[in-house]
């Protein structure tokens, strides 16, 4: 089958799995996960075939694998959609397919497949564990299987569809479709345990916060589409189209259409990749099951935001020669600021997953900042390595939590927070595979020199920032790298090193193979993914392997951007901050007894409280946005305007009409019309009544009246004739 046709098919198998599981196999757990993993494996296989084909294609950037079909008519033209794989797409497809596969398999173990149903488990709440009796009649507390097991696989299958669709799209509209489908899955999966109040809140918060970015992004699509008549990358990012966009002024003075559209699209990234100021949803998203955190909130969906701006790099940099670097400057600022800002918060978190969540915001900030300073390849490179090591770390943390929960089942102390790192310690002995892989992930995250993938990609960003003279960005990023190494060392030390601080940690248990195998797989990538992008002029190692990544991905832009000349400053900085941070973190946290406070809390004082409360952003937004808007909707718009004003006017008109009717009846109908009628009728009657006295029926009286009449008339006649002359 030609690769173009295969490309179309990549997203579809998981979609089939989604529908089949929900409609038919819900009650059969085994069939459901077999379907989900099996069909994902089909997608994975196709992705690998396409990837291999793409790598072997010469001049892939000029002649990407693509095909398209008309989707709907718009006036006299047709809107076409299609699939496309160019170097950037191929690399993204590669890491997406692998992380998806690893996390799907991991979910089987994570949701306790094969364990009994819990006696008290209800759908919508995490399983509480069950009791089982072994052959010798001893009763054991064992983990229980997730009640909504099949549904979980249906949702992550739909998610896989969304992500793969986004990657293979050749245009911004289907990218947006995939983008939003993932948003829905993110919502559904954060709220997977919807019985928990915190989870349902977090789900809504995630959906709405990202939607803020999404509506801007939609306007960005509308802008580009209206200006150019297309949304497909190849046409959109061609020189002529970009030149026209740069020359067209937008509705906002001083901004070209290109800059406006770039800003709008970037807003989408800010929402999806949880950059400041829309970062608030990601830490709360940790309410979801851990595979979800790894998949959606570390490796793929949040990376899609960065993918978008990397994809739209030509648009963002268009017009740079005219000096309009406003958009890029903003991107660099938001990225660098988020990187540092989130890293500081991560210092003060005790929840193992929340540390990773802030770390994700911080690392995504790195990539965003890299795009902002024009380091296209470095951003894509960090996107790739981060996906692997952050997925690894999340899955590792899930394994740790699972291990501690095992201990909880053993002691029966369900009050214990199994995610609190201060309740752990010494897990390296109980969970060796998890420890080893987590260590690799942690070192990669901190940029441990030479052997980890994170080092190479982070170093490249720093080198680019330094080499292109973005000193402020360079210093900010270096500082956050120091913090990153520190909190990573803190995390590893608190979790795995030293002695167990609780009974539960003492009885922790290594996870099943379906969970550890993906960890091992990802840790291989967390090391090896860096080798494809070792700079050529790197002392000693440079040139041993070709800098394949730079040439391959760089060619997407037409001509590969020139590699920055080697400089010792960023290299030494990057090595220095990584080692210092790791060393300091280990020194500070290596001997924390049970119940002891965080030493850093004492050192930082009130600042630590500020960090622990995430700079009070949640409270701040609640105060200035959520409450006023709610008041506006409930009270102002509904009660005051609709019920009060508009309905008031209507009722007023109604009352006026009724009043008029009443008036007509009282003032006109009754006195005039009825009055006239009455006058005629009543008058006649009254006259009759008064005349009635005349008609007594007595003959004498009639004769008397006749006589009087004759006398009067006779007297009258006589008088009148007498008057005549």
């Amino acid at each position, binding site marked *: 089958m030609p690769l173009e046709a295969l490309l179309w098919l990549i997203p579809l198998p998981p979609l089939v799995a989604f529908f089949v599981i929900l409609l038919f196999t819900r009650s059969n757990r085994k069939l459901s996960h077999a379907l989900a993993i099996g069909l994902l494996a089909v997608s994975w296989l196709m992705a690998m075939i396409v990837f291999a084909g793409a790598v072997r294609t010469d001049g892939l950037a000029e002649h990407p694998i693509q095909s398209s079909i008309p989707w*709907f*008519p718009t006036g006299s033209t047709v809107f076409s959609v299609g699939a496309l794989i160019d170097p950037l797409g191929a690399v993204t497809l590669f890491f997406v397919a692998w992380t998806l596969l690893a996390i799907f398999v991991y979910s089987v173990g994570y949701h306790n497949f094969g364990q009994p149903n819990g006696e008290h488990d209800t759908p919508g709440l995490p399983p509480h564990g069950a009791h089982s009796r072994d052959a010798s009649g001893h009763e054991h507390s064992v983990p229980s299987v997730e009640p909504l097991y099949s549904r979980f696989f249906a949702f992550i299958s739909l998610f896989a569809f969304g992500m793969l669709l986004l990657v293979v799209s050749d245009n911004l509209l289907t990218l947006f479709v995939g983008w939003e489908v993932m948003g829905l899955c993110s919502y559904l999966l954060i709220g997977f345990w919807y019985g928990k109040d915190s989870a349902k809140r977090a789900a809504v918060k995630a959906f709405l916060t990202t939607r803020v970015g999404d509506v801007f992004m*939609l*306007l960005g699509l509308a*802008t580009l589409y209206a200006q150019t008549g297309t949304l497909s990358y190849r046409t959109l990012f061609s020189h002529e189209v970009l030149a026209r966009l740069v020359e067209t002024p937008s509705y906002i003075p001083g901004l070209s259409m290109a800059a406006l559209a770039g800003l709008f699209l970037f807003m989408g990234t800010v929402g999806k990749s949880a950059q400041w100021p829309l970062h608030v949803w990601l830490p709360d998203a940790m309410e979801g099951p851990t595979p979800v955190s790894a998949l959606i909130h570390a490796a793929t969906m949040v990376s899609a935001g960065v993918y978008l701006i990397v994809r739209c790099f030509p648009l963002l940099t268009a017009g740079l020669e005219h000096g309009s670097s406003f958009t890029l400057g903003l991107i660099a600022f938001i990225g660098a600021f988020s990187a540092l800002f989130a890293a500081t918060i991560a210092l003060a978190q005790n929840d193992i997953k929340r540390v990773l969540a802030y770390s994700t915001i911080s690392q995504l900030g790195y990539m965003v900042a890299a795009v902002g300073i024009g380091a296209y390849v470095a951003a894509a490179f960090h996107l790739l390595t981060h996906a692997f090591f952050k997925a690894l770390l999340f899955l590792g943390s899930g394994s740790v939590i699972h291990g501690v929960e095992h201990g909880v089942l053993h002691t029966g102390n369900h009050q214990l927070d199994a995610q609190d790192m201060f309740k752990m310690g010494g897990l390296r002995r109980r969970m060796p595979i998890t420890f080893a892989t987590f260590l690799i992930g942690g070192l990669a995250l901190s940029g441990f020199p030479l052997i980890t993938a994170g080092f190479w990609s982070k170093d490249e960003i720093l080198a680019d920032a330094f080499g292109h003279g973005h000193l402020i960005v360079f210093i900010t990023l270096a500082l956050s790298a120091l913090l990153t190494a520190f909190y990573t060392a803190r995390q590893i030390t608190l979790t795995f090193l030293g002695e167990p601080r609780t009974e539960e940690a003492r009885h922790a248990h290594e996870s099943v193979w379906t969970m550890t195998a993906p960890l091992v797989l990802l840790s291989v990538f967390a090391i090896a993914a860096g080798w494809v992008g070792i700079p050529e002029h790197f002392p000693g190692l440079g040139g041993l392997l070709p800098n394949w990544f730079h040439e391959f991905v760089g060619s997407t832009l037409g001509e590969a951007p020139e590699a920055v000349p080697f400089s010792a400053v960023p290299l030494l900085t990057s090595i220095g901050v990584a080692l210092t941070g790791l060393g300091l973190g280990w020194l500070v946290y290596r001997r924390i007894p049970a119940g002891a406070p965080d030493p850093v809390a004492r050192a930082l004082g009130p600042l630590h409280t500020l960090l622990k409360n995430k700079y009070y952003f949640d409270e701040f937004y609640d105060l200035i946005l959520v409450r006023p808007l709610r008041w506006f909707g409930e009270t102002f718009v*509904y009660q005051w305007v609709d019920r009060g004003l*508009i309905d008031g006017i209507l009722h007023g008109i109604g009352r006026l009409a009724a009043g008029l009717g009443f008036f007509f009846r009282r003032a006109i109908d009754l006195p005039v019309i009825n009055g006239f009628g009455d006058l005629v009728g009543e008058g006649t009657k009254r006259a009759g009544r008064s005349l009635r006295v005349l008609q007594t029926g007595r003959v004498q009286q009639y004769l008397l009246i006749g006589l009087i009449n004759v006398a009067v008339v006779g007297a009258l006649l006589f008088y009148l004739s007498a008057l005549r002359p």
Partner: protein
Amino acid sequence: MDFITSHLLSLILFTPTVAAALLILLPRAQPKLLRWVALLASLVPLALSLVAWMRFDMFAGGFQFEELAGWYTSIGSNYHLGVDGLSLPMVLLTTLLTPLCILAAFSIQERVRVFLALFLLLETGMLGVFLSLDLLLFFVFWEVGLVPMYFLINQWGSKNRDYASLKFLIYTMGGSLGLLLAIQMLRLVVGTFDLPVLYERWPSLNQSLFGLPIGTVKTIAFWAFTIAFAIKVPVWPFHTWLPDAHTEAPTAGSMILAGVLLKLGAYGFLRLVLPLFPAQAQAFAWVLALLAVAAIVFGAFASWGQSDFKRLVAYSSVNHMGFVVLGIAAAAWARGTASAADAVIAMNGAVLQMFNHGLSAAGMFFLVGVLYERTHTRELNDFGGLFPLAPIYGGILIFTSMGSLGLPGLGGFVSEFLVVRGSWPIFPLFTAVAMLGLLLTGAYVLKAIQKVLHGAVNTRWKETALEIAPREVIAIAPLMLLMLVIGIWPAWLLNVINAAVSRLFG
């Protein structure tokens, strides 16, 4: 066969009336028989309109399947029917929703016969509006539809039905007074009620009338038409009848009210206002756009502020129909200018949004009704934690809500995107403000899902059988399927709409 093909539209139009008459002859005491007869009878117009859809030639201009017969010949009014690419989707929507509504109304227990007969009469009334090519006939059907709806709300509605039904009736009738006068005036000036003739002569009319400059007369007539249709759509601030009527109406009534009756107003804009008053529509398009944006934003806010499930869904209609009007306003403004291409896209979006909203709003009202029948409350705070008790219902509710929210992959997204795409270059400021409404759409939809489904298992309803019944699944499945199909492959519908819109407004 020949008779069928030459009188296709009349058959579509009057089969429901005949069926209603037939129902009256059937015994009152056999509700089951009555329901099935009504359901089967309502499938006939659906089948016939599918025939019309298949035989419709989208590339041919003008109206198709036309029928012309003398009616009130002495005043120049004829029985003139016909469809084009604007009305055919609406006819299909009507004939599709009616059987589903009847199926949903199977749970009605009291006075089944009258209910079903009124419902079928309502269908004739609505179809008549979409099919008429004669202004007087249009008006007659416009009013005919009101009466059954009034009784449906008034007789089968919930607590506050008297107020709601009266408000609905008086408001709509008040709006159509001006419409009637304006129609009479057009007839007086041009000498006919026939629409195709009016299209040709009226807009280009250029003499003073009644001692007034023609522009003034046309402007007055434009507003008479506009207000009548704006009330029906409804455009802010003429919308307050809607939450009351929708909330009090029985489930099937709310479905058809939101699904089709609101479209009559929007259709009036497309069929009458824009073609007959192009200059006035262009001049006042900004007013319409402003009110549309107000409907989008305030409708979303008001919806978000509700604690009554049904009222929340009712207000969502104000929000969604605002996008229809925004698209219409943008098209009215830009037609014939350099951005006519944008106008066509906006209009495509508006017509498609009419269809999509018909699907999603009917679905949402149906789902509210399913829950109401079982719990006898609509108060969101009484729910919560129903997902484990009714997982299938929950899944369907989430799906339909997402359709209403405009999730990409479902139909609503395509139409909202086209409206935004079309009106953004024409009314940048209005469209930007409308995006606030789009954001809030998410807020109220998620509020409903969260308040109904999410949370710890609800002990209050634990003993109630909440799960959706197979009959009800069948009633909503076609709507869900269509939402998905339009979201994935909108071309089958958009081709027809686009061809007509391009001819009329290109």
